[in-house]
């Protein structure tokens, strides 16, 4: 496996796509390629980007989690409740951290311990957690957050136009990069996605690692929630309702194999940048929401098709080791 240039082939392609998208966006509006503008609109990539990082870890282990945006919503409405009760921010954050970890652990339990099919079961928890968010939050949004709560999602660094949350995102990227490539936990996740059986035979608890991955994913949703309320100033049960498509697309286009075991952080980051640039462009071109979703959906399907037929991954190159949905799953 030549680890230099060739190993980063996919990342190169995405990088080129980012540049192309940027060029396209610039042609749409002369105001686009302005540093301040870019920095300001970078907010749009943060909370979904962080969740994409979390989802990457889960997908690396060979599983899936569709419920992350729903966990985010549960956290935003809980923050709303905390704000209503005038709780100090650290307490509120501790609260949503615990709740998110519990929700993530529940997912992990169902998938890793009870061995339920991850796709179907997280489709279920996606609905259950979303419903929970509505039950806690009701359909009337809450907008009474004080500035402390909203700080992370709205502040900039000093007098500069750099949003604090962008730094948080960069920090998250760094953390995930380190975790995935320089910790034993990360090694285990990659290994499990490759061959969970061999990992068991090496004395490692696959169940515990997977549950850990799900909990990390849930944490990213909680962090995303804090950013969200700062960015939009409101919390409601339907927060981040149609975000899952973008998050999965970010991961898949980032070169992460949907069956697990393969993928790198740089690819996912580039893919996040690509989708963000595209979104910016679409916003400038006044493309309405449903069309935007259409384009992202097309990218998702095309991305997987391309990766299937260029021998890079998915079903093509590796023997099927896990039970997944699909016509030829064992």
């Amino acid at each position, binding site marked *: 496996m030549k680890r230099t240039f060739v190993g980063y082939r996919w990342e190169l392609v995405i990088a080129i796509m980012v540049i192309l998208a940027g060029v396209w966006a610039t042609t749409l509006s002369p105001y686009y390629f302005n540093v301040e503008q870019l920095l300001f609109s970078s907010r749009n990539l943060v909370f979904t980007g962080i969740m994409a990082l979390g989802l990457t870890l889960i997908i690396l282990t060979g599983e899936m989690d569709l419920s992350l945006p729903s966990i985010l919503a549960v956290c935003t409405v809980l923050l709303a409740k905390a704000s209503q009760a005038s709780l100090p921010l650290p307490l509120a954050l501790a609260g949503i951290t615990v709740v998110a970890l519990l929700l993530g652990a529940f997912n992990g339990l169902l998938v890793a311990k009870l061995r339920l099919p991850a796709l179907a079961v997280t489709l279920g928890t996606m609905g259950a957690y979303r419903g929970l968010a509505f039950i806690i939050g009701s359909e009337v949004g809450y907008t009474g957050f004080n500035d402390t709560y909203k700080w992370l999602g709205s502040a900039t660094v000093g007098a500069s136009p750099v949003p604090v949350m962008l730094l948080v995102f960069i920090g998250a990227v760094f953390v995930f990069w380190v975790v995935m490539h320089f910790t*034993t936990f990360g090694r285990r996740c990659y*290994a499990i996605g490759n061959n969970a059986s061999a990992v068991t035979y*090496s*004395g490692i608890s696959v169940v515990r690692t997977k549950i850990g991955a799900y909990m990390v994913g849930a944490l990213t949703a909680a962090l995303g929630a804090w950013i969200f309320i700062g960015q939009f100033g409101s919390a409601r049960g339907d927060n981040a309702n149609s975000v899952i498509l973008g998050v999965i697309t970010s991961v898949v286009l980032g070169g992460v194999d949907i069956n697990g075991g393969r993928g790198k952080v740089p690819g996912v980051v580039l893919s996040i940048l690509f989708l963000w640039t595209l979104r910016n462009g679409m916003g400038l071109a006044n493309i309405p929401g449903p069309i935007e979703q259409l384009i992202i959906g097309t990218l998702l399907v095309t991305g997987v098709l391309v990766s299937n037929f260029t021998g890079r991954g998915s079903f093509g190159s590796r023997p099927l080791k896990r039970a997944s949905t699909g016509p030829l799953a064992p």
Partner: protein
Amino acid sequence: MGVEPERLSIRGVSKSFGPVRAVRNVSFSITPGTIHALVGENGAGKSTLVKIITGMQPPDSGEILLDGKVCKFFTPLDARRHGITAVYQDPKLFPHLDVAENIFMGFHPRTTFGLVSKRTMYAEADRMLADLGVKMDPRALLAGRSVAEIQFVEIIRAMCADLRLLILDEPTASLTPAESDRLFVVVDSLKRRGVSVLFISHRLDEVRRIADRVTVMRDGEHIVTAAAAEMTEADMVRRMVGRELTSLFVRGESRTPGAVMLEVKKLSLPGVFENVTMSVRAGEIVGLAGLVGAGRTEIAESIFGIRPPKSGKVVIDNVELKPSNPGQMLRKGVAYIPENRDDNGLLVDLSIASNICLAVLDRLGPLGFISRSAETRFARPFADDFEIKTTSLDAAAGSLSGGNRQKVVLAKWLGTEPKVFILDEPTHGIDIGTKSQVHQRISELAATGYPVLLISSDLPEILAMCDRILVVAAGRIVAEFARGEATQEKVMVAASRGSRSSDAGEERP
């Protein structure tokens, strides 16, 4: 006067997988309407030959004639359509559907409108079952059927396609004696219809009982084909194992064994193995011999905690415990090198260094942090020591040959600084050159003072390497031989006979 052509003629068939020559210039014939047994040890080439006959693998050379005509099958479906069907241990059936539908899936009897005619389907199924003397309700779900019944369904399904040659691969391995008897009745009935049956088995008493002719294979070669009546079991065994015990294996001086490091006390897993008791001393190599399916791997996996036992205890270096998971047993010092190296021992897409470090990740860095250079640093001495042939430790483990892969697995376990080694078929599928290297390693392990439990189906290997040999049959230890008093025949006989002694006349509910 026309001579009826042989049902199946195999002429000069050979097949190699890389350096391993699985089948070497094999030629023999199967007469129509006979039961033809194929016997030989593991690795003799039987399954490869069957794969070639059924179209799963193309032969490198040679040809196959079916009823006198040369045949080239490219898929098993091809072979099926021409009347050759194999029934394996792993059923290719649909558990959620009923028996009749399993028989007719793909070619259901139809009504005039092209719909499935259930009435005809069940009636036909009833008839075919009755014809063969099998009592089964065609309306019952397949999922509840026993092993024997599922086999019958596969056989009947095969019969729907103008069956000419039925291949049964170890059909009685999971059957009770009563069920085996019933199978033989069915097979006999097929024979009377002119179907030829190729019957692969380790159970030589059965072979003598039902086969008309017997072919013995050894090391990929055809040794002899003769009428079953003309061969005694001893004859067959001798031909199956009779190879020279070359001095390929350098056991070296075996020291006097030290203290008991691994002790297994009455380990039981109902339905799998029972009352297993044995001990291995430091510096000793104890072999577990037996037929495939006797339960040796299951015992080892149980000791290692993969499939914890229901009862019994394991003692590692005077620490007594009941195995519950592999992590625990690893920490207590058990190293288990699994039988299925590629599925369970190695991660083919991960680098060699990562593979070697996999079981000791926590030791390679502080607080869970780890770097590739730390992995390489850890793995390098092992890779050098084992002479793993590779351009770089970063290469994927899947790029290595079988022998080198095994070295990686051994290195990985050596790196855990264990107290006990359990090796399951360590030289399976490895070329001769690397084999002796691996044997050398194993000797060195013992010489260093490790207790080694060696599971192997390679009789010369077991006889040459082990201080003591335990024979496992049907989940029980049935014999023990000290070095020197064991011979290949004695071991084989103990392994083959033991399976019958304990169950007499079991009736199904």
